[in-house]
């Protein structure tokens, strides 16, 4: 007997999927980023002979091994929920992406095997360190490939490819219009996200620990994590711009919804998160430069200037375009969309803000790396600088959740109708024949 159209009481089936996927991605992105950061750290330890790198890499690898269970459990629960709650939609995806899902499964298997082997043979391969480092990078590679496979599916849902025959369905669907920018955005994002979380954790431990050697280590770890976090964050606006450009060209209505329409508040929040991350990171750098082994007063003064400019540019990004702030909860002032706010328009103000933020970001990271070359006195960081790291860790999680919500809600153009596969399969799993660019989907029978 068929089970029929199941729904979940109280929170609804859409929220079930959102909760499982968002939770999963918070673990999965961290694991991919952390494995690559740990492998790089192990390599740096091998080359520089500095003990912090090795200690950090091993501890992080251990944490990743333990965390893998949570990420994997959420993934499999999500697939189960999708098969149960959205069976028609899932079978369409499975038909189009059979090979992609199959490759993903094996990449996941490869990742889990190599990550466990990597951690387990740490002592055994102590005298063959180069080989051991390769284990870490191979594990990271498998993770990236698994991510690439699911990115093809996720990007296809927003911008289904123009496919007119069964023969070229797989290749063109895989390389749909937003697949490459999404994959790049997530590739860079993994490093940034994991870096900020590591920095936040280090800040917490630094404030809690009572041992001097641990204080020095966690101080160093906060610095190392933040370099990954902020260093990769400042690349994101350019790639994000490319991604949005792809969405605007292939799904203009979705672009309008998330950038200009009722859901544009998601980008106001993003600008706010970016402002907090940038200002907190730059302030941390300014503070840290006081403890450079070789005093660098000029560099410090320049970085103080950079902090001011970062604040200026990021605040420019935060200003909303109009008074239609969050219409869903009635946060509308004046005439709503008709009430324009000075300095709030995308062109030129937000472009100036974003480009300025990136340029100043590169500048301050370059200054900081210059000072890092001669080293810092570890263990002397102030309390507030560690709090800044913890704020970054908290805000980067909000950034991830906001961006995940943005991509998925982009398919709900005024909910009229809302789509699972944009223009092709509606939220109630009925198949739309008109306007769907992927012709083979139309061959199915509508529900």
């Amino acid at each position: 007997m068929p089970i029929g159209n199941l729904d979940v009481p109280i929170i609804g089936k859409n929220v079930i999927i959102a909760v499982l996927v968002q939770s999963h991605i918070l673990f999965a992105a961290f694991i991919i980023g952390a494995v690559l950061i740990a492998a790089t750290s192990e390599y740096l330890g091998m080359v520089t002979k500095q003990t912090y790198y090795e200690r950090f890499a091993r501890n992080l690898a251990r944490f990743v091994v333990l965390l893998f269970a949570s990420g994997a459990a959420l993934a499999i629960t999500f697939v189960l929920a999708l098969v149960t709650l959205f069976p028609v939609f899932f079978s369409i995806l499975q038909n189009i992406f059979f090979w992609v899902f199959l490759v993903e499964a094996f990449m996941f298997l490869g990742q889990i095997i190599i990550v466990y082997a990597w951690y387990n043979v740490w002592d055994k391969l102590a005298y063959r360190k180069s080989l051991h480092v390769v284990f870490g990078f191979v594990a990271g590679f498998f993770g990236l490939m698994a991510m690439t496979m699911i990115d093809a599916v996720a990007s296809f849902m927003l911008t289904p490819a123009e496919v007119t025959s069964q023969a070229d369905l797989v290749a063109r669907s895989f390389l749909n219009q937003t697949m490459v920018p999404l994959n790049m955005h997530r590739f860079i994002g993994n490093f940034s996200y994991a870096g900020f979380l590591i920095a936040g954790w280090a800040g917490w431990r630094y404030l809690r620990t009572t041992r001097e050697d641990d204080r020095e280590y966690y101080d160093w770890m906060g610095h190392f994590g933040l370099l990954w976090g902020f260093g990769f964050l400042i690349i994101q606006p350019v790639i994000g711009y490319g991604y949005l450009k792809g969405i605007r060209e292939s799904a203009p209505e979705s672009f309008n919804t998330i950038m200009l329409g009722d859901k544009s508040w998601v980008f106001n929040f993003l600008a706010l998160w970016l402002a907090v991350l940038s200002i907190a990171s730059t302030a941390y750098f300014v503070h840290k430069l006081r403890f450079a082994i070789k005093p660098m007063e000029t560099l410090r003064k320049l970085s103080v200037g950079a902090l001011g400019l970062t604040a200026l540019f990021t605040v420019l990004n935060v200003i909303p375009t109009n008074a239609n702030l969050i219409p869903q909860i009635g946060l509308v002032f004046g005439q709503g969309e008709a009430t324009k706010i000075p300095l709030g328009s995308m062109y030129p103000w937000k472009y100036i803000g974003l480009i300025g933020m990136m340029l100043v970001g590169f500048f301050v990271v370059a200054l900081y790396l210059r000072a890092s070359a001669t080293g810092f006195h570890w263990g002397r960081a102030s309390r507030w600088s560690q709090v800044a790291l913890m704020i970054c860790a908290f805000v980067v999680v909000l950034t991830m959740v906001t961006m995940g919500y943005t991509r998925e809600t982009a398919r709900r153009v005024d909910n009229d109708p809302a789509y699972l596969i944009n223009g092709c399969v509606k939220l109630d799993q009925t198949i739309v024949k008109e306007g769907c660019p992927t012709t083979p989907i139309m061959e199915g029978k509508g529900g």
Partner: protein
Amino acid sequence: MDLALLLQQESTGDPTAIGIFRFFAGFLIIVTIYTSFLGFTYWIGKDE
């Protein structure tokens, strides 16, 4: 309308009380799962 029936309608995308409730409920569950799983992993991983 019966509350149970009411709660099975609408979606997060709609500007209704139910939609907004579901949005925040979803967010709260995500944060709860995330922090508790991370905390658990820390707990099983820490040295005695």
